[in-house]
């Protein structure tokens, strides 16, 4: 089973704080994604990447940066966190294309006070 590891599992920060969420997959997958999950909205796509150095803009990118440093690692950066970014964040990966099944991490719960 493909493995996607997110860290930290929980994070609390204050408004204006700087936060980095990490995601690592060890399955040699090309595609990686960041979603946020909020009640009533399901999962919304923030950013995604199809390889090291590549970044694609998702549907709710405002306030987020992302960087794919290697094939394995995909980071989500919140440079000036706001309470509206309080959410459950999921990282996922897929093999050869975005049409393959996704493998999800366990999520990071972020609270911005």
């Amino acid at each position, binding site marked *: 089973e493909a493995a996607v590891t997110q860290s930290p599992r929980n994070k609390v920060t204050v408004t204006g704080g700087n936060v980095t969420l990490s995601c690592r997959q060890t399955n040699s997958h090309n595609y990686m994604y960041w979603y946020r999950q909020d009640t*009533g909205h399901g999962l919304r*796509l923030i950013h995604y990447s199809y390889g090291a150095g590549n970044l694609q803009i*998702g549907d709710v990118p405002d306030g987020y940066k992302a960087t794919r440093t290697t094939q394995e690692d995909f980071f989500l950066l919140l440079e000036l966190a706001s309470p509206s970014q309080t959410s459950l964040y999921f990282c996922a990966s897929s093999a050869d*294309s*975005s049409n393959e099944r*996704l493998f999800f*991490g366990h999520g990071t719960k972020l609270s911005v006070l």
Partner: protein
Amino acid sequence: TQTVSQSDAHVTVFEGDSVELRCNYSYGGSIYLSWYIQHHGRGLQFLLKYYSGNPVVQGVNGFEAEFSKSDSSFHLRKASVHWSDSAVYFCAASISNNAPRFGAGTKLTVKP
């Protein structure tokens, strides 16, 4: 961009009942459709997917889904649910080289 609609936020059934969870999508071209399950406090897990061929696809744990181009739907069904099927179910749609988009999810509660 493709969009996904799950009209039922909550569905409650009794153990042994059949269930259908609805999913509709909007996109005119070739589309990949899938269903995922999320147990409380966990990440999403893949159930099944469809791209072409037989419109009825089988998944894990007795789940199946049927694609209908005329209705723009991809409903998930199970003939006899178990209490362990209680979870949130997400429908997803993707088009070539574009990331999957998810619906808002349907919370299924199975009562004993």
